């Protein structure tokens, strides 16, 4: 049988295909060209692999965008409203308006123990060439289980009660930047407060445990006009997680009782932080002191729900939240922080403070104290995105989880 042309070509084709690539490979360039020709026959458009596609899908998902605040200004706000009020979660919306001249922030959170919070803030961070700033805010809170142990430094840990705190605050803060880091401003606000029986069944309700003599305001609440001013100087290197510099502030606010005529007073809050860097900021000694002083005129008292309080993640970390209430407070914190890795820092700290009745007791004697340690996981802004503080005091230990979504 005669071989067809097609079969001959096929045989030759196979030969050429198999033998030809190297037939002229007497030059390095021929080898390279052959490899390239080989690849040219198998080109495919670039496409991400399966794992990358999955990650991209996650990043574009609404939950991820809400968590990271990238959903066109809408994000999830989570964490406690106040310590002990249970884990709270809710939406937060931020929108720059008028080319960023005004920033609108809306925030709402709710927790499983029937606490909720809602707020609106309008701020104009830079007016008149960066000199003036103005903030208008309003917030309504309904905290179902605010702890209360009684007034004064000798309150009993086992005497815990709880009350519902419901307040609405409308506030205006105009301010001026005097020069770099130094600013001052005024505070004008209307605060409406209501308290009620606590939601917790584990603890007695405050009004059942404490009478109005020991706990002013437990029987009657009022609304306040608040007015005052503040001045602060901030020269910290990075406000979210300072390694050097300091911040010093003083705030004076006068509370005018609008209804009862019994709860007018003034409050002075002093606060100073100093950060001392060691070894290029990989170790930091942070020192902090604060004091809140109140004074009421004749026949006036400071209601317990606006009294200075100590205990919790920002004050005495070895004690329960708002463990100590008093007309006045003083507190000092010292912390030594060290670098473990670019995403983890550790710290040991000591806190001490007290509440007291009279200004003459303003000293560092008879302080409640605690020590503790902290693990901080740093986020993309360099500040701690998540931290766990554990404080030890003679009343036991407390663990504080903090989430920073900034």
């Amino acid at each position, binding site marked *: 049988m005669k071989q067809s042309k097609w079969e001959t070509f096929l045989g030759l084709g196979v030969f050429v295909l198999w033998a030809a690539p190297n037939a002229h490979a007497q030059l390095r360039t021929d080898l*390279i*060209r052959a490899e390239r020709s080989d690849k040219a026959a198998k080109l495919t458009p670039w496409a991400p692999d399966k794992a990358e596609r999955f990650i991209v899908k996650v990043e574009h998902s609404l939950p991820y965008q809400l968590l990271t605040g990238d959903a066109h200004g809408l994000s999830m706000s989570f964490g406690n409203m106040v310590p002990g009020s249970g884990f709270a979660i809710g939406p937060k919306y931020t929108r720059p308006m008028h*080319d960023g001249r005004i920033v609108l922030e809306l925030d709402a959170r709710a927790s499983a123990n029937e606490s909720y919070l809602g707020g609106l803030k309008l701020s104009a961070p830079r007016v008149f060439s960066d000199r003036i700033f103005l903030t208008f805010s309003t917030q309504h809170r309904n905290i179902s289980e605010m702890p209360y142990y009684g007034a004064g430094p000798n309150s009993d840990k086992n005497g815990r009660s709880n009350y519902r705190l419901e307040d609405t605050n409308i506030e205006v803060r105009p301010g001026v930047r005097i020069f770099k880091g130094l600013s001052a401003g005024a505070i004008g606000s209307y605060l409406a407060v209501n308290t009620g029986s606590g939601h917790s069944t584990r603890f007695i309700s405050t009004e059942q445990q404490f009478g109005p003599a020991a706990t002013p305001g437990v029987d009657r609440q009022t609304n306040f006009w608040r007015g005052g001013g503040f001045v602060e100087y901030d020269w910290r290197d990075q406000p979210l997680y300072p390694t050097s510099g300091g911040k010093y502030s003083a705030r004076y606010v006068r509370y005018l009782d609008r209804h009862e005529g019994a709860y007018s007073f003034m409050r002075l809050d002093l606060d100073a932080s100093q950060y001392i860097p060691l070894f290029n900021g990989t170790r930091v000694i942070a020192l902090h002191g604060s004091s809140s002083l109140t004074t009421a005129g004749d026949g006036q008292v400071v209601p317990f729900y606006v009294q200075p309080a100590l205990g919790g993640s920002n004050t005495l970390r070895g004690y329960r939240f708002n463990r100590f209430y008093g007309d006045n407070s003083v507190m000092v914190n010292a912390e030594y922080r060290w670098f473990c890795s670019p995403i983890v820092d550790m710290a040991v700290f000591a806190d001490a403070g007290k509440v007291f009745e009279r200004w003459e007791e303003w000293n560092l004697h008879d302080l409640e104290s605690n020590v503790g340690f902290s693990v901080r996981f740093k986020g993309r802004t360099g500040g701690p995105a998540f931290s766990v503080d554990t404080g030890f005091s003679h009343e036991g230990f407390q663990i504080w989880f903090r989430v920073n979504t900034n």
Partner: protein
Amino acid sequence: MVSGKHKLSMRNALSVAALAAVGTLAQHGFAETHAKKFYADDPLLQEPAPLPAKGVAIRKVDHVYDFLENSYVTPRREGKLAKHSPKRALDVNTLGELPDSSWYTNRHASRRMSIADLQRGPGNGTPPDANGSWRITAAKSDGITPGFVIEDKRNNRYVLKFDPPQYPEMCSAADVIGSKLFYALGYNTPENYIVHFRPDHLEITKGVIYSDPNGRKTPLTRHMVDELLRTQPKLADGTYRALASRWLDGEVAGPFDYRGTRSDDPNDTIPHEHRRVLRGLAVFSAWVNHHDTSQINTMDTLVSEDGGQYFKHYLIDFGSTLGSRGNTAKHPWIGHQYTVVHKDTLARAASLGLFVRRWERSAYPKLKGVGLFDAWSFEPLEWKPEVPNPAFLMMDNEDAFWAAKQVAAFTDDEIRAIVETGRFSDPRAADWITECLIKRRDKIAEAWLGKVLALDRFRVADGRLAFDDLSAKYGTRTTRSYEVRWSTYDNNHGVLTPLSNASGPELPSGPTATEYLAATIQCAAGEAAGACAHPVTVYLRRSETGFQVVGLDR
């Protein structure tokens, strides 16, 4: 149904099979040829002309994926490969050098550039035209530094980037200096310029969209531009300083990966982790502390030539070099460890921070434009980018030697000349950067040139094999004596046959018929440790004018 006409008969099938078998044998025969060490055109000084690329899709990199993969997968994959089955770089010629290609061009180390050439870098003749407004055509929302895409009167396009407000001059100077240095080192880099302009020089083109940090897109307004400039220091003459990076030639095709090949590039046949041009980048990055060597700082473009398009590979964005981290000064740990560290973290946590590392004790001057950059804490063998890089992990001593000798080739004056292009207003800043780069260069030379027998530039002169001892040349060690032993080399079978009584640098005169000679160079008797444990074999090929160096094994 198969037609009878095209049905393969048994006989004809056997014919086809026989032809195929002959083909296979022929291929096998050629495969033997394939195995030969040297080809007629070796050493290759330039890769062959690229094949045209078609149907190219723009490659996009997901930063989160890139970070996760390189932080958690790469150390286990490439890290283990490098340890257990290392592979020599595949993009080198028989001399261990890189041929000119779309990735790399031999420049300063092999073809000395003048001071003017070094300062010119990829180009210094086309800054944005100051005579006319700069039209903002896009707002730069990727990367970590804010900026705009502008077009000047001549329709040249640039990316205009600003320094972080707390660190004036730092990022822009680093970006310019980095582009010049990496250009001189052989890479493709963009033309970068320090520019000064007045706010009214910027003109917003209608329809420009700005994406804020929350991903919200809004039309760019004059107020937004002013807000950005408000954070920038205004100079005495009313101008602002910025970096203008000229748009790359060709069509943007997306970043390149440091691993694998591009599936749509016919010329990309060598896995990138096996490219010396990318492995050796680890040493160059260490020199200038370029910690952000992720894909985002690379770019492929499609350039047109001879009617076709082919890929050209660039390094871009050098704002993370020297003391700059782009939007802030470097943290002191940068260059000393990866972002994600496992073993060390627990130990440091337990130590209460009482164990202080060298880099934590370094003294950094507070000079405008410098950021955080030093030489004292620099350890070339320990340097790390912020995120593991697959090509860097695959780097071997030969790759590092190739790179280190290029770094060492820069003189003090040349380094100073390049640093001057950063246009620091405080001369002490330029002095400090220069001093650090010089000291870091010396540390690199000392560290890597000592890992192999640092002999280079092999040549035949006056009937002798001559070479440079780079360790002695750059003063990293005292002059050493070497022994040379000669062999003939069978290129087709890869067999070395020692020549008796043929030693010393003079070429042996005996084997007149041989095409190839091989000289094995080792340290003189008594030294066998360290670099001396690895002799160098140099191959010479007979040509019409005598023997010429054609290759070497380290």
